[in-house]
């Protein structure tokens, strides 16, 4: 029993010879061998073109825990993008995910004030994201 992510990266013309990369990661809780055990899987409309928090800033949530994040921009327009922001209290712009593209990365918060945000290039973009995590109470208390 395990949760895994496999990447395949192929190109026939990026170099003189074809590039083919295939690699698999088996998810474990931070630094150990225990399987990851929690998931949040959502499709959301980002609404207005302002910053949206995907993983909130919280020492408890992230700094000592293992997190894996998959994000896909569901727009079918290749020029529409969402900027992924990682760490820093206001989020540091890291990369732009254009329509149809996806990203996957581990996240183990370094800055206790840090978070992961996305900033859509226009209002109304849908994204899909999967947050696989451990030992995190993600539901706000009433």
């Amino acid at each position, binding site marked *: 029993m395990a949760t895994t*992510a496999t990447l395949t990266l192929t190109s026939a013309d*990026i170099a003189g010879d074809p590039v083919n990369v295939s690699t698999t990661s088996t998810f474990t809780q931070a630094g150990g061998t225990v399987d990851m*055990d929690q*998931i949040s899987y959502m499709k959301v409309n980002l609404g207005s073109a302002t910053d949206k928090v995907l993983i909130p800033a919280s020492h408890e949530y992230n700094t000592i825990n293992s997190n894996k994040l998959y994000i896909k921009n569901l727009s079918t327009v290749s020029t529409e993008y969402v900027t992924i922001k990682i760490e820093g209290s206001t989020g*540091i712009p890291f990369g732009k995910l254009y329509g149809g*593209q996806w990203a996957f*990365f581990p996240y183990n918060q370094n800055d206790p004030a840090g978070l992961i945000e996305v900033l859509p290039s226009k209002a109304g973009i849908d994204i899909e994201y999967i947050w696989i995590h451990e030992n995190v109470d993600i539901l706000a208390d009433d």
Partner: protein
Amino acid sequence: MATVTAGITLTSAVGDLTTNALSLSDSTSTTITNMGTTGLARAKVSATAVHSTATILYTADDYAAGAHLYIKNTHGTASEYIWVYDDTTSGDPVILKMAGGDWAFMPIKGDKTLKAYAPSGNNPYVEFIVYGTDQ
């Protein structure tokens, strides 16, 4: 012009994350005129903190916005971390803490130098490639 196809398959066994098994597959192709690449590289990560000797993964402005990074910590032990940081932004913020065996595939803006270090001092290896529009 060159085209790169990136695919991902996420799977989870029965009872692991949810009661039922999960499986998700996705793939996207990117075609770029004037594509440049670092080439697929493997490097030892010797630095144990932010330092000029940290392993350079990408140099700012080599490629335009919309570049992509694939990176893997090839170490077989989960507790053997490699940290990737932004060497251009003030404070050298850590972007990724990659456990042994972790990989990432993500877009990068292209205007930040990215470096890696391994706090353990055990010299793990990193595998990576960056591609984007040459400028």
